[in-house]
Every structure is written in C-alpha cells, then in structure tokens.
C-alpha cells in the first residue's frame, strides 16, 4: 500500500530525504536543463529545430545505423546468453554460482579498457592476426568495420543479458517442468510451453539492458570503428565537445530518450501481459 507523504513518520521522511535530494539534484534538474537546451536556440528562444535536426541526412543515417547495430548485438547477446544461463541454472547446482561469477568477472574491469583491449586484439598487427599469419592462415580484417562495433557491444554488454535470465531461470520451480513431463510433454514442449514463457521477464529486462546502452554508446564505435562509422551517440558527443553546440546536442539527446522510452514501454507491456497470463 502506498501512503501519502504527510502520513509518514518523521523518521521515514528523514530516511527518504537523501534519495529525494539525489533524484532532484542529479536526475530531475539535469533533465530540465537538457529539455531547456533542446528546445532553445543559441539566444534562448524557443525552437524545434534542434529536435527536428534528427531528420537531417547525417543524423538520420547515424540513428538508423545505431538501431541496426543495437538490434543485431542484442539478438546475438540473447542467442549466446540464453543457452548459457539455462545450462548454468539447470545443470550447475552448487557450482553454477561460480560459473555465473566467472561470466560477471569482466564487468569488474573498466569497459573502456576492455574495448581498447579488443582494438589491440583485432588490429592488422594485433594478437589474433599475428597468430593467424604464424600458421599461414588468412588474416581477419574486421577492425574499423561495423562488425567490430557489434563484437564490442556484445562483449561489453553480454553480462547484462546473462544475469537477469539466469536469475529468473534459477528461481523457476522445478515442479512445473516435472508436472509437464508427467502429463506427457517431451523436452521441447516443456521448454517452449513452460520454461520459455516463465523466463520472459528475465529475457525482456536483459534485452532492455543490452539494447539501451548499445543504442547510446559512442566509445565502442570510436575505438573499434576507427572514427569511420558515426553512431547517434558519436554525433551527440561531438556536438557537445567539438562544436560547443549544446542546443543541438540536447535536442538529439531528447530524440534518443524518446526512442529509449518507446523501447521500455514495449518491453514493459510484454512484461505485464506475461504477468496476467500467469
């Protein structure tokens, strides 16, 4: 039950105060500033041109490429993460937490460093190509292409897909699956009718947690794309730092926020439908 703010005891209010200050100071005020800049021109007059600049040739292309690469990397993450999470949850009782831990371990290292490491691995004279050419195998030239960016996204964000799926799967009652088997369902049927639908909340939060950072990244495309592929994140970053044009940067940020909110609404809807089915 939600209680009105006034009916809360003094102690509860005091405990909530830091969070209130935090959300106002570091979420609400910055958001207001972004909206202020996004809808103002250099002289502070109202304009829609910053937001509308998403339709310019360059910006639209960047947004479309960002969407494509984010979809692709989210899909690849799901393909890799689901079986892994399933195996961890299903077969690894006792040891599974150790395995899950191993997959989460890279998250403890700075993601920038991990991306730079991939650059060193993939370069023309990088580790992978050195080994390949040592065995007289054809070398791999994916650095500075969109594929390298997708690889970077998958590597950086994979743990965000594994964790929520693993969490939901490991909490599934084994009785459901057993009941389905008792009633004559085979392995595939059990999976598609029981396990998969019940794991959807984890899948959906995994998708959001991979898709949103992929859509907004500018570091991965910068380092692994060699500056040759502009994602929408790169354009926003350049508008703020190189152009000193905060208005246009904020305008595009608002557009990006709209896309993120849309993706969250869609996933939230699936989440609710799933809950009502249960």
């Amino acid at each position, binding site marked *: 039950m939600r209680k009105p703010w006034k009916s809360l005891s003094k102690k509860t209010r005091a405990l909530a105060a830091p969070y209130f200050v935090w959300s106002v100071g570091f979420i609400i005020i910055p958001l207001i500033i972004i909206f*202020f800049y996004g809808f103002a021109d250099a002289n*502070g007059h109202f304009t829609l041109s910053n937001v509308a600049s998403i339709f310019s040739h360059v910006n639209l292309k960047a947004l479309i490429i960002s969407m494509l690469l984010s979809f692709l990397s989210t899909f690849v993450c799901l393909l890799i993460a689901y079986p892994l999470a399933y195996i961890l949850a299903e077969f690894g009782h006792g040891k599974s937490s150790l395995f899950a831990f191993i997959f989460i371990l890279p998250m403890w290292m700075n993601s920038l460093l991990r991306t730079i490491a991939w650059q060193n691995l993939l*370069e023309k004279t990088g580790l992978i190509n050195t080994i390949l050419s040592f065995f007289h195998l054809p070398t791999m030239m994916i650095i500075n292409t969109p594929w390298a960016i997708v690889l970077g996204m998958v590597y950086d964000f994979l743990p965000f897909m594994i964790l929520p799926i693993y969490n939901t799967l490991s909490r599934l009652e084994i009785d459901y699956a057993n009941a389905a088997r008792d009633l004559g369902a085979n392995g595939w049927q059990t999976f598609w009718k029981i396990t998969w639908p019940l794991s959807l909340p984890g899948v959906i939060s995994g998708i959001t947690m991979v898709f949103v950072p992929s859509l907004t990244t500018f570091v991965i495309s910068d380092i692994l794309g060699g*500056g*040759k592929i502009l994602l929408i994140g790169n*354009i926003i970053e350049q508008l703020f730092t*190189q*152009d000193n044009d905060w208005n246009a940067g904020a305008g595009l940020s608002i557009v990006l926020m709209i896309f993120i909110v849309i993706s969250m609404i869609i996933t939230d809807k699936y989440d609710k439908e799933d809950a009502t089915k249960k």
Partner: protein
Amino acid sequence: MIKKLICVVLAAFIAISASTSCGISKAERSENVVYVYNAGEYIDPDLLDQFTAETGIQVVYDEFESNEIMYPKIESGAAVYDVVCPSDYMIEKMIKKDLLQPIDYSKIPNIKNIGDYYIEQSRSFDPEHKYTVPYCWGTVGILYNKTMVSEKVDSWDILWDEKYKNEILMQDSVRDAFMVSLMDLGYSCNSLDHDEIEAATERLKAQKHLVQAYVVDQVRDKMIGNEAALGVIYSGEALYTQSQNPDLEYVIPKEGTNLWLDCWVMPKNAKNVENGLKFLNFLCDAKVAAKNFEYITYSTPNEACRDYIEDEDLKNSETAFPDLSKYTNLETYHYLGDTADKYLNGMWREVKSY
C-alpha cells in the same frame, strides 16, 4: 548568460558534493597555488615538482584533449584556470570573445629567450602581442614507413593513392583534416569560400575508403606498431616515433602545410595572476625549456635553450628545428568565426558518416 547560470548551478552542486565528501586536496585549500590547463602529454611532469620546490607554489595541473574541448570550459567560467595553453586560432577566438587578460611581460624577464621570429608569428593572432607567451610550435606533415612506402613522399596526393588502401591514418580533427584537403587542392587552409570547402569535402569523401581510421593521438602508437604506412601527424610527435621505430620518416609536403604555434595565455577570470606569471617565467627559463624539450620533443621557440640540450641528435634534428625558409607555403590557422566553424563541423560530420 543562461548557459553561464546553469554552469554555475551545476558547478555549485558538484562543489557541494565534492566538499561534503572531503574531496578537496591540500593544494586547493592552500592559498599559494597556480591552476594550469594544458594539452595532454605536453610537459615534463618533473618540472611541475621543480617549480613547486623553487617557489613554494603548488601546481594544480589539468589536461585537455583538444582546443575545442578546452574552449567551453573557459567560456562558461565553469572552471577557473590561471594559465592555459591553446593553439593560435583558438587564442584568436578567445581574444575576440574577450576571454583573456593582458600579460604583464615585465614579470616575465625570461621572455627574452623566445626568438623574435616566434613573437612576430604570434602577432598573426595576437596583433598587439599583449596576451601570449609562445610555448611550442611545429608543422603538420606526413609520417611514413620506409619499409612500406618505396616511392618518394613529397605531396599530400599520396594520401589519395589507391595503392595504400587501409594503410592511411587521418587526423580526426576538423581543421587538420580540411587543411590537408584544401592545401592539396591549392587553396588556403583558412578558406571561407563555400565552393572551395565543398570541393575539399568531396575530396575527403573520396579518400574515405582508403583511410584505415580517423584518430588523433593514436597516429603515434599505430605508426610505431607498423599498423599503417602513412599517417598525418604533428611534427612534434615525429621525433618520438622515430626514436621508437627507425623506419619512420617525416616530410612536409610541397603544397605547403599548417605552421602552428601554441602559446600560454591567462583567462580573464584567473585568480592567481602573480603565481601564473611566475609559472610562465619559469617555463621560459632556458634550462627548464631545454629539459622540457628533451621530454616532449616538440619544437621550442626558446632560442636560448638550444645550448642546454644534451642529446646531440635532438639538438641538431632537422625535424625539430627545420629551416623554415625552405618552405614557401606555410600558413597559420585563423579563427574563422562561429558561422564558418559550424559549417566546417557539419561538413566534417558528412565526411565521417559518408
């Protein structure tokens, strides 16, 4: 104005959060301090300690990646620095925007060590020589790997040669990229002519499929690691790369290039002016400048320091101290105005998203 206000509000928030978490260092609390804002890897760090040992003044030292990143911080007043080291065209912009204060040269007796040639050069962006203390200078040229490029390199044209597909590193900076293209076409690197800039844009687009990557500082490491055959680089980096990889050679193309000069300036809102002047006088000292040169290997306008350079190779390096009279078409960047800047930035994004 509103931008300033917002920056102040944000700064206040950050300051409050920082101070409540005891984030203020000892140097910042003491009065005797100088705030220095310099480009990345652009000073011998030992000199900062030496300065503190000699004067008792603590140095709070921050770095920026590019002139463009530095500018908004000074403009908004979000950060207050006593001395900053931008490039020529950016200094011109800061003077025009009234962000700098005149320097009292009587407090910098060591400025006599700076060659007249460089003071003259600084007049192209600081006509009355009121605001600047020259620090480093150089050119932009082509660094190439002799084992991968056998022909004679003397023209920007080689950066458009299909033979070197995926072997070319371009500068990821608007002015430098357009300089290469504009000068190769025979135009000025300060061109404001839309037809000329469009022609340069088309030329950069035509080059893109040959370019391995658009990078800034990484040109250095990638060329050392034999990652590419040709790279556009600042002359100051050339000496260092050659010391790490003897196959590398630096040339100034015959079409001409950018001659740049980075200078120390004092922002209008500087708080520790006296300390800032002491710091600049320290950097102009011949021995200090020699030590600094041997560390960063960027050409120094400090003529008195040549005698103190211990490394004979560095001292007589043709790359560090080229005979500029040999080159006819050397141009210093000028501030082009906000409209032109915006136009160029837009064109550059078109090249990069092409």
